[in-house]
């Protein structure tokens, strides 16, 4: 095979990763793993941004990814701190056992 991979292939891969991440958020019970699946979702979208930036020949998409990575770092710090505090309080990181705010 010669040439380069078309944009649609990147979009399909991105959609697949997003779907896998969504399944992870929905079916896993460990808060840490749910959090990792959220990172997977962010990365799937980043791939779309970079692919479109390449296709359009502008770096604006890459600048957005730069911001997404920054926000993901901040989100990971705060989220893991919350999980840590929750573990100290309740002794578990199982989402099924922390349902006080859920119906």
């Amino acid at each position, binding site marked *: 095979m010669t040439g380069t991979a078309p944009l649609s292939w990147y979009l399909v891969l991105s959609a697949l990763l997003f779907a896998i991440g969504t399944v992870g958020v929905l079916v896993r019970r460990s808060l840490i793993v749910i959090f990792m699946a959220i990172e997977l979702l962010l990365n799937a979208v980043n*791939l779309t941004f970079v692919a479109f930036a390449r296709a359009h020949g502008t*770096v604006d998409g890459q600048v957005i990814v730069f911001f997404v990575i920054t926000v993901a770092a901040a989100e990971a*710090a705060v989220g893991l701190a919350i999980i840590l505090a929750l573990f100290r309080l309740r002794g578990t990181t199982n989402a099924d056992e922390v349902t006080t705010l859920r119906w």
Partner: protein
Amino acid sequence: MSPLAFLVVAALTVVAALTVVLHRNPVHSALALVTTMCLLAVLFLGLDAQLIGFLQVIVYAGAIVVLFLFVIMLLNLERERRGLATPVVVGTATTGAAGLAVLIVRGLAGGAPPADAPVEARFGGVAAVAERLFTAYLLPFELTSLLLLVAVVGAVAIAKRRPS
């Protein structure tokens, strides 16, 4: 990136992502997440996004996942007794996610330009990205520093052990 190289990297990425979601041991999930990040960095390099590719490895694989591993080891998480939700939830979630993937592809792929249009040599480098970052996106960039400051202070405040 050649189609063959893309297919190999894409297949590995999907396998690594599935491992993140399906493995029962959270440490293995985190290691699979590192693999996914690095493979995505390869894809970014293939898309002429050098800066983002290296940032992906440094920030995601180097900092964020290490934070995950640190918390996993601090909490001393064992394998989950019940890793997944009930089969009904799993089935519904999988079906819904598959439908979501189809919708995303159909929504995005309409009239998409080719991914191999010629670009200038500095495309995706530090200079090209920084030029946009410090002109058109200057205000969001400065606000980002505020966000990071708030996040750091907030994380310390939340995770600090309270004297009781």
